[in-house]
């Protein structure tokens, strides 16, 4: 399907918030989808129908509502599996967001020390290494720093090139035989870079390390197939893919989940409980302690239906076209410097940049964002939860415009016009 077959104006009608105005009548230009996406009516309706018709706690009831709620909740597990090419529904674990999914794996690894021999693959200690990249979101960096601290393992990382790609020149020296786990972002939320997962997976396989992929920014935008990618775990988050806030997913290979130690303890994740000791349920329930995010999971199912109907390849093509258009358009703004890949190849629709005024003095991203907001244009400013990237590029912060299936080239034009105004304002 070519981008032209994708009718963005029809898509926009599905998103009620896009019709709202801000600052006394200005149309909203929402270019902050990498922070969170907007939600189509189908998702809002699914959640509402759940509460008005079927709400009950899941799994533990035999009455009508409990059975209906359980069926709805579990149906999303099938939808998620199909959406990411997983072959086994038991591989899909629901979490509250990506952050919890990534912490889940990190804590399971330190819990392996006090688990039986079956958890051997997850054990980690002094002398072992954890590998991440310099472009990780804090949610895929801090959990591993904390794991290193808990276990005495060492954190290492793959650096970046000047145009915001992974520097793979010394990959074999970074991922060594001591690596127990490699965790990396699929698509960077600050640079937009789409990483060559297969290269890293190949090296990780050579040394027997587990591979965790942070798909928070890829699953919402690209067709993602866990089998083709060859990773062991994939984390992603509902709110960036048109689903409600408060729901995320950890996908993991069943043979790994089967022997992975639990993380949160509580109801639902157990098999037999006595005061003295407990045994744990098989996956996925072992990793879903407590009452889950039921309506949010139902909403995630509706979001997946929605995205699937439009077609992820079509969505990706549309976003690719908007991204290419935006990179060209931004290049016409004097004093603008993109931080990240300068072209649309292997990059997604999150574009970070810096801006100077006529005199070449930097305009701080906060000030850029403020002026744009005054025009109804929503962008994000700051370090985007990826401060090491800012350090790497020697900048305190960036302005980031990010796109999704409902973004139009007219919105990109509005951004460019807004940036000219920003420069005028601060060149006074």
């Amino acid at each position, binding site marked *: 399907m070519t981008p032209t077959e994708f009718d963005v104006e029809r898509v926009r009608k599905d998103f009620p918030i896009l019709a709202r105005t801000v600052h006394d009548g200005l149309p909203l230009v929402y270019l902050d989808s990498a922070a969170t996406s907007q939600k189509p009516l189908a998702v809002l309706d699914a959640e509402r129908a759940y509460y008005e018709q079927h709400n009950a706690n899941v799994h533990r009831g*035999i009455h009508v509502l409990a*059975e209906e709620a*359980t*069926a709805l909740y579990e*149906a999303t597990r099938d939808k998620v599996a199909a959406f990411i090419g997983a072959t*086994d*529904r*038991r591989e899909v674990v629901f979490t509250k967001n990506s952050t919890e999914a990534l912490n889940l794996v990190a804590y399971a690894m330190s819990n392996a020390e006090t688990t039986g021999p079956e958890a051997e693959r997850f054990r980690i200690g002094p002398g072992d290494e954890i590998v991440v990249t310099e472009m990780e979101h804090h949610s895929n960096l801090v959990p591993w720093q904390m794991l290193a601290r808990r276990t005495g393992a060492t954190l290492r990382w793959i650096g970046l090139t000047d145009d915001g790609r992974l520097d793979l020149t010394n990959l074999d020296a970074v991922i060594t035989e001591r690596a127990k786990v490699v965790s990396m972002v699929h698509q960077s939320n600050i640079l937009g870079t789409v990483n060559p997962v297969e290269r890293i997976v190949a090296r990780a396989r050579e040394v027997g390390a587990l591979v965790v992929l942070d798909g928070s920014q890829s699953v919402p935008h690209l067709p993602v197939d866990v089998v083709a990618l060859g990773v062991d775990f994939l984390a992603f988050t509902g709110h960036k893919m048109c689903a409600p806030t408060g729901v995320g997913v950890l996908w993991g290979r069943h043979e790994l989940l089967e022997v992975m130690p639990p993380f949160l303890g509580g109801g639902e994740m157990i*098999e037999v409980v006595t005061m003295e000791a407990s045994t744990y349920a098989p996956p996925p329930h072992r990793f879903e302690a407590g009452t889950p995010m039921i309506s949010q999971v139902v909403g995630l199912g509706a979001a997946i239906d929605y995205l699937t109907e439009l077609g992820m390849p079509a969505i990706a093509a549309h976003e690719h076209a908007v991204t290419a258009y935006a990179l060209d358009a931004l290049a016409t703004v004097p004093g603008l410097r993109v931080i990240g890949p300068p072209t649309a190849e292997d990059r997604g629709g999150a574009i970070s940049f810096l801006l100077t005024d006529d005199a070449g003095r930097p305009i701080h991203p906060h000030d850029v964002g403020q002026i744009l907001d005054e025009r109804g244009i929503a962008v994000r400013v700051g370090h985007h939860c990826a401060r090491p990237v800012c350090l790497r590029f020697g900048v305190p912060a960036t302005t980031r415009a990010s796109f999704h299936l409902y973004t139009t080239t007219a919105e990109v034009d509005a951004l460019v016009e807004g940036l000219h105004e920003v420069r005028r304002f601060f060149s006074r």
Partner: protein
Amino acid sequence: MKLDSMYQEIILDHYRNPQHRGLRDPFDAEVHHVNPTCGDEVTLRVKVTDGVVEDVSYESEGCSISQASASVMSDLVIGKKVDEALDLEREFLALMQSRGTAEGDEDKLEDAVAFAGVSKYPARVKCALLSWMAWKDATAKAIDAPLDLPAQEKP
């Protein structure tokens, strides 16, 4: 009452007069299975001799459906060749997953066809399957061969 389709007379009979209940010697393998969502438990022993299920005995705790199913299951598989018994297990599993659309082959499943009505109640299907899964697991251990438990746990 619609529930009569689930609570067949034959099920209540087995529930009240369970067959082969009480753990017996000798046995080749013993397993303990739990339905964590409802707390039903079964401890089950199997003796296999020359490829034949020579004995099945159990202790269990649970609702009428799970209790009756253990009784019906043991009645059915004792004396059968392991292969035949596994066939029955597959047949019974299919019946339970039919959501009320299948009736079951009475010539093969005998009293177990009475559980056809249970398949309309998703939450109770696990009750009916508990002892069958335990038997299969114990048999796998007894003959030291892996037998797949249902790969795709369905809600």
